Each structure stands twice: as C-alpha cells, then as structure tokens.
C-alpha cells in the first residue's frame, strides 16, 4: 500500500507541484478580487447612497429598521451603511480621510463634534440651501432640539450637520458609596469645594480598594469640564459672524437667540491663563491627596465594570453610560447623575454628532433626504431605542427611555442645556487631532507632580498648542 502511494507521489514532479501552487494562488486571487479591489464595500460601484458610521457590523445592522423605513418613503434611493470600527473618533476620521485619498469616499459620514470643523473646513457640503428650501418641514425638528447643539455644527456662518445625539459631561455618582460616607444627593449648584469634601468623606469611609474620583485623559470629560466650570479653557474661544439666516428662521423666539453666532472658533492657545493653572492645581490636589486618580489615556467604557462593582465613587460621563451600567447589573437606584460642580461658572461641556454630506457625494439631494429623514422623530426612535446616548430631540429624553434603568435624575441630561444655555461644545478646531495630542500629553504631567512640574507642563502645552494651531491653518 505504501509503495503504491509513494509511486503516485513520485509521479508528481516538483515543477507540477509548483505549477499547481501557482494555479492555486491565481485562483485564490481571482476569487478574492472583489475584496482586494474593495469592490465589495457597500455602495461601491452602484448608485447606492453610501453612509459611514463609527461602529461594528452590528451597529450597521441596527440601523436597518431605519433604512427600511427610509426606503418605504424613498424607494428610488438605495442606502447602504458602512460601519467602520475605530478606537475613537480621531481614528475614525483618519479612516475616512484614507478613503478620501483612495478615491472611495462615502457620500455621508456620521461625524462627532471632535471632527465637525475638520469636515466643515475641508470635506463637507453645507446644508444651508436645503434648510432654506425645506424650512417648513424642518421647523418641528429645531423646535425639539436645543440651539446649542445646532450652533456646535455651525462653521463660519453655515450649518454642516444636524445634531442626532449628544452628551454632556455630567457627574455620575455611586449611591452606595455616597450613603456609606453619609452623603446625600448633591445640590444642583454644588461647588468644586463641595465636590472635594464629598470625595474626602468617601475616602474616609472606604480607605482602600476604592477611588473617590476616576477620570480619564481625553478631550471629553477629562480636564475640559473643570476648565469650563472655572470659566476658562485651554484654547481661546471666539465666535464667527453669520448664521443669522438660521437663527432668525428657526430660533427667533428662543430666549438664548442673542447668544447664537456663526459658529465657534478656537484660534489661539490659552494654557498660560492663570485660571487654567488654578484648575489644574485643583486637580493636582485631588491626585496628591488620594481623592482622584492620575488620569490614564483611553475612553470611559472600561470603567463601567469598575463603577458597577462599587469601586468608583464619582466619574464624569454622559447619557451614553446608562445602558452600559444597566447591562453591567446596576439597578436604577444604585447610581445617579448630577450636574458638574460649579466654580466661577456652571458652564458644562458637551459633544454632539450628526450626518455630514461629503463634497464628493454623488447625489447630494439624496444625501439630504437621508439626513432629513434621520432627523425625524420616527427615525430617531428607531435608531435610539435604548439609552446608549442622549437623543438630540428633547421630547425623546423622557421617562420611557430610562424606565427600569435609571438614573433617578435623568432630567439632568437635557437640563444641562436647558438650564445652562452657555454650555459649550468640545473645543475642536480643524486641527483637532494635533490639539488633542497636545492636551493629553501634558495633562498627566501637570497633575502628577509638584507645582514646578505643573508650570512646566502648562508651558509645554502652550508651546504645543501654538504649533498645533499654526499647522494646517
């Protein structure tokens, strides 16, 4: 038997084997050509409206119900959602830019505040003409959405996105940790000093395996809410002119009409402001006294488990945390949310997201129809059935959304805008990536050492920000 097998094997020469291997490689190449050439990317090569979102294939599938509803309204427009996995928004924008460079950009992109001005400056098509045309249809949307969210998407007088969801940096607290320390729910206007004394009480009650204040080093929810509360920022904030066409059309009767502008501008660094020093020094004190951690890089998602296991007392986060805490086993009374502590002001930080039409979109009218539909109550209820974020529509932030999940004071989420209309967006100029790197790289040093190290870190931040803003300007 062995001999026979060997005989057959001997008949296959090396050349035949190599030829077979070559044919195999060729066959595999032909079979995988759609993947190699990228022609299997949704929307590529046909007339579909290609929409890029940050997320997984499951996130794309979750939008299918909205796509089906849209298709019923517009059977002539085919929509394909492309989910792009990314570590954070910065990573997502990089991938979109790579698609642009490759000549295969999507038609519509879901963009957060972090990238709003980058897209507005270089990639996106303004929505002004469509909004003027469909003003009657859009009035109901703007009535339901706070103007601060809209203003965050204004750039030099034009509107580039409609806010779909948003989150403010509110303060989550563990009710068990609070009650163990004999603390009650903080007042709406609690101050940074009240906050500190609460942390000290929690530390005293639980001296080990517990962190009174956990925060991460990033643009949202890191040092910036503290800077805003102290009526300052690491970039000088100004506003551009223009935009009256929108405010006069849709927010003419809004009490905050006079505050509105053609969009935010961050043109100069401000890390040498004494209030910035004061804010960092406060945080340095929390770290030094064991009340808060030295902030690590990364998002807050990894904290859900730690918070749910009662090992964290407080942490800043938005409405996006609710579903995660619920899934981690927290009951609605196990935690709660409060406004961010007050300092010189009680201005909060928020971030929002919405669809932008790319300049290169094949059919901009179809893209606008998708955006308009997505802004409807029907679509937003399909896309946000759970509290995975805070819907931009005020009417959707209701009892039903948080029923059985908490927090008890869920009204805090939208009240952050309604009660504090000066609440501002994440400072994100078109050079956001460089600005964020400059901020993050100096924050840890600033709050981890002595006063001299803090001064050096802020000087370094000022230099880095100057360089970041000068680049690509």
């Amino acid at each position, binding site marked *: 038997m062995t001999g026979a097998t060997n005989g057959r094997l001997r008949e296959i020469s090396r050349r035949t084997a190599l030829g077979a291997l070559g044919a195999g490689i060729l066959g595999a190449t032909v079979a995988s050509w759609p993947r190699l050439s990228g022609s299997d990317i949704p929307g590529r090569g046909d007339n579909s409206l290609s929409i890029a979102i940050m997320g997984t294939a499951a996130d794309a599938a979750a939008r299918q119900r909205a796509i089906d509803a849209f298709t019923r309204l517009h059977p002539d427009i085919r929509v394909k959602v492309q989910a792009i996995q990314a570590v954070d928004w910065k990573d997502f924008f990089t991938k979109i830019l790579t698609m642009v460079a490759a000549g295969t950009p999507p038609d519509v992109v879901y963009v957060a505040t972090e990238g709003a001005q980058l897209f507005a400056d270089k990639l996106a098509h303004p929505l002004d003409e469509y909004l003027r045309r469909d003003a009657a249809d859009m009035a109901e949307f703007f009535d339901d959405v706070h103007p601060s969210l809209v203003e965050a998407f204004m750039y030099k007088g034009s509107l580039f996105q409609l806010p779909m969801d948003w989150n403010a940096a509110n303060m989550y607290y563990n009710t068990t940790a609070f009650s163990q320390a004999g603390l009650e729910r903080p007042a709406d206007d609690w101050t940074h000093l009240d906050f500190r004394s609460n942390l000290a009480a929690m530390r005293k009650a639980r001296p080990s395996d517990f962190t009174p204040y956990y925060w991460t080093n990033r643009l949202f929810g890191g040092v910036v809410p503290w800077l805003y509360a102290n009526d300052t920022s690491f970039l000088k904030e100004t506003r551009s002119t223009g935009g009256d066409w929108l405010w006069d059309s849709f927010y003419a009767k809004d009490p905050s009409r006079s505050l509105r502008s053609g969009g935010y501008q961050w043109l100069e660094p401000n890390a040498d402001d004494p209030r910035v020093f004061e804010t960092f020094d406060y945080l340095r004190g929390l770290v030094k006294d064991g009340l808060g951690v030295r902030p690590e890089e*990364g998002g807050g998602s990894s904290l859900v488990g730690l918070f749910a296991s009662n090992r964290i007392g407080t942490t800043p986060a938005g409405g996006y945390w609710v579903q995660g805490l619920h899934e981690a086993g927290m009951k609605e009374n196990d935690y709660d949310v409060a406004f961010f502590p007050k300092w010189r002001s009680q201005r909060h930080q928020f971030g929002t997201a919405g669809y932008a039409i790319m300049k290169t979109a094949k059919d901009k009218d179809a893209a606008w129809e998708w955006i308009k539909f997505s802004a409807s109550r029907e679509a937003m209820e399909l896309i946000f059935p759970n509290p995975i974020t805070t819907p931009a529509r005020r009417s959707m932030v209701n009892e039903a959304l948080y029923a059985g999940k908490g927090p008890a004071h869920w009204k805090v989420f939208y009240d952050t805008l309604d009660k504090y209309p000066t609440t501002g967006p994440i400072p994100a100029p078109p050079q956001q990536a460089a600005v964020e790197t400059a901020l993050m*790289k100096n924050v840890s040093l600033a709050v*981890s050492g002595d006063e001299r190290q803090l001064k050096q870190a802020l000087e370094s931040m000022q230099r880095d920000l100057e360089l970041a803003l000068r680049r690509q300007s």
Partner: protein
Amino acid sequence: MSTTTPRRERANQRANTPGTPGAQPGHTASGRHSQRWLAWIFLAPTILGMGLFTLVPIVASVVLAFFRWDIISAPTFVGFDNFAEVVQDPTVRVSFLNTIVFVIVAVSLQLGLALALAVMVQEKMPAWLRAFFRSAFFFPLILSAASVSIFMRYLFNEQFGVVNWFLSLAGIPAVPWLTTPGGSAAVVILVYVWQNFGFSFLLFIGGLASIPAETYEAASLDGATGWRKHVYVTLPLLSPTTLLASVMAIISALQVFDQPYVLTRGGPGDSTRTAVMVIFESAFQRLEFGQASAIGVILTLIIMAITAAQFRLSKRFVFYQ
C-alpha cells in the same frame, strides 16, 4: 565519511543520460532559454510583490518627504522644509532620544535574558522540558502586540491592577506604573522584552546546538569548568548568532510602536513617545504626510547606519569555526 553522491554530480549524471526521467534539456541553447523564462515566471510574483509593496512605497515615501500633503489638497513641493521642521521639533527630538534609550535598554535585556535562558534550557534538562520551555518562551511572540498591551494596561493599572495588588500583599504601596514617566517607560520596556525575547531565545538555542561537543570536551581536558567554558567557548562560538540576534533585535526595537501606543499613547508627556509613533501621529492624526515621510527617511538612515556599524564592528568580535 559519506558514501552518497553529491547532488550536483547526480544531476549531471541524469542530465547526460538520454531517456532518464530526471534528464534536463538544459544543455542546449533553447533549453537554457526556456529555463530562464521559467525562472522569471516563478520569480515574477515575488518581484512584483516586492516592487509594488516595498520598493514603490519606499520611493514614494522619499519623494513625499519633499512635499507638503494632507491627503485632501494637492501636494506642494517644499524642498527640505519638512526635514528642517522635524529636526527643530522638540517632540521629534525627544522621541528619537527615547527610541535610542529604549533600544539600548530593551535590546540588552532581551539578548541577555534570551541567552541566559537558552543556556539554561540547553543544559541538563530532559528533552520534554526543553521542548516545553522552547514553546513557552516563543509563545508571547505569536500574540498580537496590541491585545497583549491592552491586557497589560489592566494588569498595571494603579488602582485596580493585579500587579499592585500583589505588591500590596507585601506591604508595598501602589505604584503609578502608567502615569509617571519612569513607571510607564519601565512597563513599556518590560512588556516589549517579555513579548520579543522568544525570538532571540530560539536563535541562541540554534546557535548553541551547532557548537560541537568536542570543543567543550577539549576545553574540559584543558581544565575549563562551567563558567569559564561559557566565557571562553560558548560566547565566542556563539558570536555569529549573537550578531544576527542583535541586528534583528535592534532593527525591531528601533521600530517599536504597538506597546507604547496602546499602553501609554506616548505619555505621560513625551516620556514613552517613540520615533515610529511620531511618524504615525504626523501622518494619520495631523495629516502631515510630508513630515511623516521625512521622519521615516531619517529613521531609515539611522537604522541603516547602525546596522552597517554592527557589521563593520563584527569583524573584530565575531568568530567563525
């Protein structure tokens, strides 16, 4: 003494015997011609692949170093401006300095550990245990550096990490591993060495196996004992392997990215920012592809210079049997 016919001789015999299945028509002009074509056909995929995915990007990168390009707008020729800017950029300078320090410390540790373990495993150990250690030490190398680094982030977390928990059992206070310059650099080096020493280890195992037993026997007859045998026999005869291992380890360490990027994002401050991280940040975060290419060109030149220096110095320190 071998009784087998040398391969070339056998091939010639087959080629010169008409009707033999293995006979090659390579001795005629047309046969040589067709063989040459065949060779080119087999080489074509490799040449094409190398050209397309290695040579073209290298040339494009060098060319791009003289342009300002943000992907979106058209590239603008700026001459040597990118080089001038990156040389003046303190972050770039610090990142190169970090990389050099990293290479010195990490490669020393990596080679030292690999050599020590290879000698230990090769000596006085049952074959099955030797096989186990070979696999165990090589195992980290096949893991994704990113996932290992994510895992290590949890391990070294100051508040809730397992490492600090173990230290607390010994009464040692929590160490801020990832949030202080010294701590984060130590963790990055530790994780990198743990993940990469397995490759050098395998090279040393191979090198040790190739040292003839007679040499050790001769050394023993001359009175050399354990430690002296290693110093006067093992190390000199292992020098070709050491050269190879050090060249590969240095090139790899000069390109370190995954571990510092995932563990610390280069922080705190710039304390763990490396040259390749700066290339990545320039290109894919700040969209300064020209500057990124300029840094890449500088790094390539440094790697080439170090490797050339190693080979030049090797003439003095490498001994072949």
